[in-house]
């Protein structure tokens, strides 16, 4: 009886989503795993089938979905020969809650509340990309007040720091540097406290909305931001001592999970995975949105495409984010924090007390929502994990006809079988960690 038959219907309902056993690892399957990016011919793949160990020398084991190093509910089926990983198949869907379907039943004002729960480590990016797409469809993308756009940049860069600190924490823990986990969470918490002060919530902020942001920056925000970004660089220097220059840590990561630029592009990988292979591609610089063309920052790239490069890129992107935030503090203009377009913006609170029409207007916007012209648009931003895209089809009503989020983690996960092939099972943990998948975004 094959693995598939045994598994289907008895323990799980994954059935044919699972990895097949070795005897059925025919040319077609190897073509899928290897040939896709290496451009093998079918004949070459067929030659590979006979090679390798026989079935009684390998075993297929499950890693996850409940495993501390799988960052949530990622399940990997690994075919092992001793400690060597031969084939890998990620199985996802354990966190699927139909958020794209839910999004079709929420108005454009309720939309950010929904999408912010996808990539829960970088929620502001989800809100941003949803708002940008809605504004594009409304045709008001040029009219958003400059202050609102700069506030969006400020918050997403703070969010980038907290997200990358979370990566440093979990990456440290996964390769055995447990103290790093505590430090990373500690520093991230400072960032979340700052976000809570500005938006009202630690996570799932619903702060960036179509038309601008929910509220202006609170009193004392500048000091709070400065305190935060002054506190991070000393910690980063500490991490350099603790991790970057430390021989054991480097041994765990250098040369592990290598992927080439050609493979990364073929597999659609974006973000730090693509940059680690030496491709200098960052949407903030190459296809600027908001006001990124007015700030000065470097795109960090790697050379070898290994786990260490991906670590180094993320830790240095924190430094770049701090550089951007300092410039934002100087450049942030006064003005409105949301567009004064009666169509999308509710009247101010004071007007509601004195005007019946304002009250009706306020009520209408929050119950029925505003109508968005017929059309479809795709917008994308550079999230800490890569290109985060949003595709909305509008039928002219106040709810999206179709709302799709292109999650970078979902696509990046496809690089796992390539990075893991031929590596050790201990390295598998480091490789999953370096891809930094957020399962909420993978499964949506």
């Amino acid at each position, binding site marked *: 009886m094959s693995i598939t038959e045994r598994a*289907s*219907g008895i323990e799980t*309902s*994954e*059935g*044919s*989503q699972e990895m097949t056993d070795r005897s059925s690892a025919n040319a*077609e*399957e190897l*073509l*899928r795993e290897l040939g*896709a*990016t290496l451009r093998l011919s079918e004949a070459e793949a067929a030659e590979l089938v006979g090679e390798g160990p026989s079935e009684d020398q390998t075993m297929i084991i499950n890693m996850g979905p409940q495993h501390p190093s799988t960052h949530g509910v990622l399940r990997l089926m690994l075919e092992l020969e001793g400690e060597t990983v031969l084939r890998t198949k990620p199985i*996802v*869907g354990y966190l*699927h809650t*139909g958020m*794209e*379907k*839910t999004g*079709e*039943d929420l108005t454009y004002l309720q939309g950010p509340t929904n999408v912010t729960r996808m990539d829960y480590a970088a929620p502001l990016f989800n809100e941003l990309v949803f708002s940008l797409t809605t504004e*594009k*469809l409304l*045709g008001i993308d040029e009219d958003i007040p400059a202050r609102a756009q700069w506030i969006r940049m400020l918050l997403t860069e703070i969010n980038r720091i907290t997200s990358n600190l979370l990566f440093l924490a979990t990456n440290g823990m996964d390769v055995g540097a447990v103290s790093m986990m505590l430090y990373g969470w500690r520093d991230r918490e400072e960032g979340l406290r700052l976000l809570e002060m500005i938006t009202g919530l630690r996570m799932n902020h619903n702060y960036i909305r179509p038309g601008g942001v929910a509220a202006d920056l609170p009193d004392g925000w500048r000091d709070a931001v400065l305190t935060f970004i002054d506190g991070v660089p000393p910690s980063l220097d500490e991490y350099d001592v603790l991790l970057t220059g430390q021989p054991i840590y480097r041994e765990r990561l250098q040369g592990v999970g290598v992927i080439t630029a050609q493979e990364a*592009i*073929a*597999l*659609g*990988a*974006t973000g730090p995975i693509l940059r680690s292979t030496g*491709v200098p*591609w960052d949407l903030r610089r*190459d*296809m600027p949105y908001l006001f990124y063309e007015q700030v000065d920052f470097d795109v960090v790239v790697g050379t070898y495409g290994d786990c260490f490069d991906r670590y180094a890129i993320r830790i240095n992107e924190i430094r770049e984010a701090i550089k951007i935030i300092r410039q934002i503090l100087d450049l942030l203009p006064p003005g409105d924090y949301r567009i004064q377009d009666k169509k999308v913006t509710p009247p101010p609170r004071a007007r509601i007390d004195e005007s019946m029409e304002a009250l009706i207007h306020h009520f209408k916007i929050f119950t029925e929502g505003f109508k968005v012209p*017929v*059309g*479809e*648009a*795709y917008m*994308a931003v550079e999230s800490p994990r890569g*290109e985060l*895209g949003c*595709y909305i*089809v509008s*039928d*002219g009503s106040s709810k999206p*006809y*179709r709302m*799709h989020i*292109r999650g970078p983690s*979902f*696509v990046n*996960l*496809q690089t796992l079988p390539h990075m893991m092939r031929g590596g050790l099972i201990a390295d598998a943990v480091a490789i999953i960690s370096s891809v930094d998948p957020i399962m909420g975004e993978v*499964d*949506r």
Partner: protein
Amino acid sequence: MADDVAVEEVATPVPEVERVHGAPVTWSAGQRVLHPSRGDLPAVVRSLRDDDHFNMCLDVTGVDYLTYEADRQLPPGVAPERFEVVVTLMSHRRRERVRLRTQVPEADPTLGSLFDVHPGTEAMEREVFDLFGIAFEGHPDLTRILMPEDWVGHPLRKDQAIGRIPVQFKAADRKDAR
């Protein structure tokens, strides 16, 4: 000068639909959209990759237009069908994206896989198959990816109701279920 302009205006024929690799082009909110036919899609994507430097496939998704009543914004000559597969390509060299909308009929929801052109579409095509029931011919492993294997139906289709699962509370039968 004025004469020249007038002559030019008269001489210009009615502009035909712009085409890229045989696919008619429309613009939506300032973004370029190609409308290849179902049979042409893999070839158009391949030509875009080989000739026009669209080297990465960012996204493959679907739309079910069953209950859509507004204008579909299709170019002349493209007949609307129930399903649409939407592919987003990226060119790193040209720093631009292009979107491809392909009509897929309800009676035969299949089209050619892009796996041979961009292997990164593997998971995305599985997602479209899972949530819309659109089959990709030539895909190496077309199985459900997000839903359980024994799930019946394709949730993002418009004739699938939005989730309302009967919850078995003990007091449920005493209250009028909304």
